[in-house]
């Protein structure tokens, strides 16, 4: 445990582990409670359930001797969902139903409809992902300082759609470019109090590894992707900076692949009910591999007033996305 001092001296970069203290027993109790209340409320408890789990997971995450804090409310998520359901999902659903019923069944019309559906779907996914991240950050404190996200979901959303499409038409070859662009956008618009995160990764550094992974994927039912992904995670971590620190996330492709496969297995076997345990596994996995390089200038991190979202992200719930 280290106590930050105002005057860090230049010396070889220290490496501090990120630690997660979560325990299966505690997660299980929260899981049981959430499950029972979800059943009793026909699933409407899910916003409060998710909030409770986040409270737990945040409070068990530690960096430089200090736990993270989550102060979101279930009500914020619920209302966010309600507004989205009414203003966005209802009109879309109604329009879709009318079109699906009365539209002509000829091929050209059907193709046009699929194109519109595709664009709408991935656009909304992109927007929802970005807004949900903004909400989570805005409800997170570390050392009493609030995190937040700026940027615009109406830039991120269309770019997400565009880059995803690019990946499809290039048979995946746009992946390093797409992922780097999106990561840069997310990181650059993240603040820890007064301190802005920066990102200096470039897609071209990843292409060598990607080429090997792509070829490997051809013979491994796609699992060769992890050969690339492990590198991408490590690269993005070391290229992310804030107040003089950067990150280290060293993981072997095999380990990452095994971790992911077991997560999928848990979700499939438990019909997604085991999601909290996948979350715990993820937190521990991160804890095992993530460390912080360098010593931050703690006193430089100042609390600043920020424009925080009042409500949680409703679209994310509609798409059944949670994300940590």
């Amino acid at each position, binding site marked *: 445990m280290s*106590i*930050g*001092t*105002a005057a860090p001296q230049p010396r070889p970069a220290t490496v501090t582990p990120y630690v997660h*203290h979560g*325990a299966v027993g505690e997660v299980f109790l929260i899981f049981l409670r959430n499950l029972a209340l979800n*059943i009793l409320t*026909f*699933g*409407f408890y*899910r916003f409060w359930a998710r909030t409770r789990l986040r*409270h*737990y997971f*945040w*409070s*068990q995450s530690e960096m430089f*001797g*200090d*736990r993270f*804090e989550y*102060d979101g*409310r279930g*009500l*914020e998520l*619920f*209302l966010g*969902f*309600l*507004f989205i*359901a*009414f203003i966005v*999902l*209802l009109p879309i*659903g*109604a329009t879709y*139903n009318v079109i699906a*019923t*009365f539209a*002509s*069944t000829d091929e050209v019309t059907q193709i046009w409809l699929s194109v519109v559906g595709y664009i709408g779907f991935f656009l909304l996914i992109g927007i929802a992902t970005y807004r949900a991240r903004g909400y989570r950050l805005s409800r997170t*404190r*570390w*050392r*009493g*300082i609030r995190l937040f996200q700026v940027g615009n979901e109406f830039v991120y959303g269309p770019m997400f759609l565009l880059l995803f499409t690019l990946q499809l038409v290039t048979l995946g070859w746009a992946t390093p470019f797409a992922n780097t662009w999106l990561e840069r956008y997310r990181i650059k618009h993240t603040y*820890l*109090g007064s301190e802005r995160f920066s990102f200096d990764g470039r897609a071209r550094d990843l292409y060598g590894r990607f080429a090997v992974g792509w070829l490997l994927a051809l013979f491994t039912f796609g699992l060769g992707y992890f050969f690339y992904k492990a590198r991408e995670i490590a690269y993005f971590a070391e290229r992310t900076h804030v107040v003089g620190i950067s990150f280290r996330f060293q993981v072997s492709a095999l380990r990452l692949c095994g971790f992911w496969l077991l997560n999928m297995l848990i979700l499939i076997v438990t019909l997604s009910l085991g999601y909290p345990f996948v979350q715990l596994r993820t937190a521990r996995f991160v804890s095992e591999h993530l460390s912080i390089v360098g010593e*931050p200038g*703690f*006193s*430089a*991190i*100042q*609390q600043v007033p920020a424009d925080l979202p*009042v409500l949680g992200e*409703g679209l994310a*719930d*509609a*798409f*059944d996305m949670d994300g940590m």
Partner: protein
Amino acid sequence: MRSATVRYLDGKSAAARAVTAELELSRLAVYDDGDGVLSRWPLDSLHSVDRWTVARGPLRLGVRGEPGVRLIVEDHAFRQTLLSAAPNAGRPPKRPLPPALKRLSIMGAAMAAAFTALFVAAPWYAGPVTELIPLSWERQFGEQVSDLINTNAGWGVCESEAGNAALDRLSNRLAASAGLSYVPTVTVVSLPQNNAFVVPGGYITLLSGLIEQSTSPDEVVGVVAHEFGHAIERHSLKRLVRANARSVLLGAMLGGSTLIARQIAEAGASLWELQYSREAEEEADRIAVDILRRAGITTAGLKRWFGRLAEEEGAETGTDDQSTPATNYFSTHPSTLARFQDVPVYAGDQGLDDSEWQAIRTICD
């Protein structure tokens, strides 16, 4: 133990300081070795930041009214002292709703109410909404559905020149009598059941069992008139609007919640749908009688058909009382016996002459 070294975060920067915290009579004082007293807080204003690290991990305290200020107590003995001296130290704060969230909650309640109202009121607005749908859309949609059912379902569609001509003449006569702006298409498919149905746009399908089991043409004509009743009132389209409205509302409302919740809600909705089906049947019966009477066709066939159906049902269930409340509530059609009794008898022709009736009887041969 009255004092200990704790970590202090002032809520303004992320720099943690090691300070001395000392328990006074009703307050906690925090000293910095150089600067003297940093702050004094009433004991009851101290609360734990979260419920989880109280049991396991460092005690993390916040101060009511000073967001971001944190005291982290690692020392075990001092932590126990604080937990017993400060009444709220062991639990997270009760946070009152900020005004913005309060306002939004009221709007949210209004929206939830609107959702419920839209769901419950689907039967009432389904009619007016259906009226907004152009007949040409309905016809186009109905034709597709009818094709899908009659040809793609693998049922044999029965056709003969004379039979089709007879059905066309009948349809024209009934349409004229009903004042319909289009002439419904009547198709016969080869299926042994004694039944008929209509899809949107007036596409009527007769099952060959209906024709075979009828003793005279006015029975078949009566059933066709009944399906005309559905077509005129656009019952199937209304039903579709209701079902779609409910499924859209449920889809939007339940979002990412469990499949089970969805199934329960949909089962409830479909149980409710039964009631509207019964009303639709009664309405179609009334219209059928009206159309037949104005076309100068006897309604005796329709009545006889219901009578025979009631007898068959009675034989199946071993009872001749069809109107027990339970079967009445759960069936889509009103009790057949009641329908039989409700059809008034008007005299008229048979609706089809002998050669037409012969042509229709042999349409599947």
